[in-house]
């Protein structure tokens, strides 16, 4: 789970099913990626193009600099945190040691990892099941039911926030990690929609042929449909991994004790303790922010093309 891109490469290399060479995991839009009409033309360094690249470089600085500032500040001693210098004048690791001593960072990271993996895996599997149910079978009321799935996406989370809290409260699950992921066992409308699109792009003849060969519904799903849509499953996994890792609201609602915190909830606690109105140890807050963010940057670089493809597909389908 931790290395989605590796997983994919392995799958690509293995002939998963002895089926006719259908398009592998092609989204309904037709082409697996955007048609690059911009790339086909040879690069000519006209004045206009140089201006465009210069503008993009300047914008890149705007977008990336706050990060660099944050990372740089995390290596500065307390007195120099706000000097806005790119390279720390005095380079120190002390903040990282301090934040580890001041807060149970490892425990928070562990809690977050647990929640995140459970959330991502359960929502991917359950959404795939449901999406397959809607994509493959024809039955009365299917479209109405699928319309209901889509309609739930329009419901603001605020409406169900209080009653869902009351459900977990009555189950005695408040102040446990369960409410942060267990809802994902039942699929999520957005992913059901996304995966259904991918499933519908699979050639139907493949499944008719498999059926004649004696495959039942379950084997068709697990042995043919799932392997063929592996890229889409990875998109779902990493999207939910990010969503679960970065969520603050649910940890605020459900977690009481510090030893149950996820890392964003812990960072908020550190900000309250060491930031404004607190002890003014911003170097602690800054270092904790870096630690909270780094795993997401790693995730992005591991699954970059899946992010791009997943987001582009979302827009095309909307």
């Amino acid at each position: 789970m931790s290395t989605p891109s590796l997983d994919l490469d392995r799958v690509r290399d293995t002939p998963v099913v002895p089926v006719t060479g259908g398009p592998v995991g092609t989204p309904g839009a037709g082409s697996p990626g955007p048609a690059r009409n911009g790339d086909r033309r040879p690069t000519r360094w006209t004045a206009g193009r140089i201006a465009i690249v210069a503008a993009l470089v300047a914008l890149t600085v705007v977008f990336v600099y706050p990060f660099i500032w944050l990372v740089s500040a995390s290596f500065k001693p307390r007195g120099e945190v706000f000097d806005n210098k790119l390279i720390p004048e005095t380079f120190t690791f002390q903040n990282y040691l301090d934040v580890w001593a001041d807060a149970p960072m490892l425990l928070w990271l562990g809690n977050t990892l647990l929640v995140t993996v459970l959330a991502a895996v359960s929502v991917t599997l359950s959404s795939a099941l449901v999406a397959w149910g809607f994509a493959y079978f024809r039955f009365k009321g299917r479209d109405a039911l699928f319309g209901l799935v889509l309609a739930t996406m329009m419901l603001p989370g605020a409406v169900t926030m209080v009653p869902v809290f009351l459900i977990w409260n009555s189950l005695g699950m408040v102040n446990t990690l369960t409410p942060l992921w267990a809802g994902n066992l039942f699929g999520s409308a957005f992913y059901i929609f996304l995966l259904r699109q991918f499933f519908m792009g699979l050639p139907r003849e493949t499944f008719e042929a498999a059926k004649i060969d004696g495959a039942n519904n379950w084997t068709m799903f697990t042995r043919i449909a799932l392997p063929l849509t592996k890229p889409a499953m990875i998109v779902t996994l990493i999207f939910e991994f990010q969503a679960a890792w970065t969520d603050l609201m649910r940890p605020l609602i459900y977690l009481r004790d510090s030893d149950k915190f996820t890392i964003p909830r812990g960072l908020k606690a550190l900000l309250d303790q060491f930031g404004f109105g607190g002890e003014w140890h911003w170097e602690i807050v800054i270092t904790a922010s870096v630690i909270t963010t780094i795993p997401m940057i790693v995730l992005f670089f591991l699954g970059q093309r899946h992010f791009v493809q997943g987001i582009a597909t979302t827009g095309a389908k909307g």
Partner: protein
Amino acid sequence: MATVVDSTGSEERARAVARRRRGRRDTRAALLFISPWIVGFLVFTAWPVLNSAYLSLTDYDVINDPNFVGLDNYRRLFEDEKIALALGNTFFYAAIQVPLYIVVSLGLAMLLNQAGRAAGFFRTAFYLPNMTPPVAVGVLLLLVFNGQNGLINEVLGFFGIDGPNWTTDQSWIKPAIILTSLWSVGSSVIILLAALRNVPQELYDAARVDGANGWQRTVRITIPMISGALFFVFIVNSIAAFQTFTEAYTAFFGSGNTTYSNDAALFYVIYLFQQAFEFLNMGYASAMAWVLFVIILIITLIQLKVSKRFVYLEGEQR
């Protein structure tokens, strides 16, 4: 003769029976696949929606039983000054942030579309902020926009501008939050870039032959051709803007920041969260949630209606 008719008739009947049986079997299998969502829908959507509607008519603090008060909560909404404040803040935020967000992401996407092979690199740079957990973005907001020694004011100072106290001055808090939100335009940029790349090059070539200039090509070809994606980004971001929570809550609420007033950052969902989980006014919070639902519904319906006039869909798109 008669036997022939009879036999085909029975054959047909047999086939129809088989088809119906297969249909029933299909339905049963489909429902089995869909069952996780059905259970989840009943438990985590349908029941909470009903319960929320009921709770909005009660006084409920979780410890004691709900006390039915009729429409009192809704009446109180009109007298609550904080509701007016939160609604005002939220509408202000949405009215400024959504158009700015669209313009910025469209501008970036168009620049990227001209960047040729380098587009991939810049796209990565623009997307990185989207990977930053919102709670860390909230921390960055406080640091980068700090009035005394923040990065923004230092840059402004370089140009001879005396920057405001963004994070403490009531009239500058929302602009700071809005500017911060523009940092994460990356996902919309990817959606719009994918749409831009699907615009057929012939249209531009033909327009150029007809003597259309760059501005005319943008307004007459680009915008109409990507209006579907633009509209998707518009609607999704409008809905999100009305529910904005994490960055503002992190930076200005919680047990920390008690030094300065945070009235200017009190967005609707933040106030709802406070009512529900800090003051334990579950009934009142439920009423607030329904008002939010109606607001979002009305705005989405207006947008859908308006879009019919402006959004161009290629004939065969679904």
